[in-house]
């Protein structure tokens, strides 16, 4: 059995986070969510995700500019 793939979702809208989490967990991904850039950096460092879904508005935070 393959390890489930890990996804970090970064968005400041809780509804978006929860809708995506539900859809992706049903598809057997391991999902981590973050509401701001500091939270995101922590989750990304901890989980070493296969993929990051990042709200484009949050890119104005310089901490996250390294991602793209």
């Amino acid at each position, binding site marked *: 059995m393959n390890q489930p793939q890990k996804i970090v979702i970064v968005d400041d809208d809780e509804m978006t986070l929860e809708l995506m989490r539900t859809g992706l967990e049903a598809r057997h991904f391991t999902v981590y969510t973050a509401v701001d850039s500091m939270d995101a950096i922590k989750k990304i460092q901890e989980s070493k995700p296969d993929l990051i879904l990042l709200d484009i508005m949050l890119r104005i935070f310089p901490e996250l500019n390294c*991602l793209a």
Partner: protein
Amino acid sequence: VIALTANVYMEHLKEDATVGFDEVLVKPFKERDLYEKIVNVLKPENMTRNGMDFPNGKEIVSDESLFSLKYLEKTSGANREFEIKMLELFIRNNTVHLEALKKGVSDKDWDAIYRIVHKMIPQFRYLEIGKTERKLKLLEELTGEIKDLEKIPALVKEISAETSQILLLLADEVDKLMKKNRHLEEAEDGMIVDHEKTR
């Protein structure tokens, strides 16, 4: 990295905004798009097209019904508890947003209004509140481009009135869903009792 954006008019995005991202996903996302984009980026062998059995329904924007739970139902696989949680989130968030909009108007803080509206729009799309969403988009445009500022107070008033009405209807909907959940649990308990009686 996949970029998430609430802006459907991609040409409005500055070109450099999406540079460096592998894919761009517009909110509200369709499950199929979300999964396809993830497959595109990850390309894992164990993800086949068989995994994509989501119904690809057309967007329903109707003025006749004020809101619709279809999108929530589809995305959650008709999970009632999840729907209740989402509606409660919507009610809580937008009660705060309405107060903040009023304050924005009295402070003439257009930037604050722009940021609030930007957060409201995807939430209104999730519940398919088409009529008010169109007004929110207009408000986003006016405050984003700082134009026709004299129209803003009346527009905010309309949005507030419509949203207040929606919040009441949604609170009723939450009650209904909770009742249905309780009936279901009671019915299940009843079945267990019957089953024990037959022993």
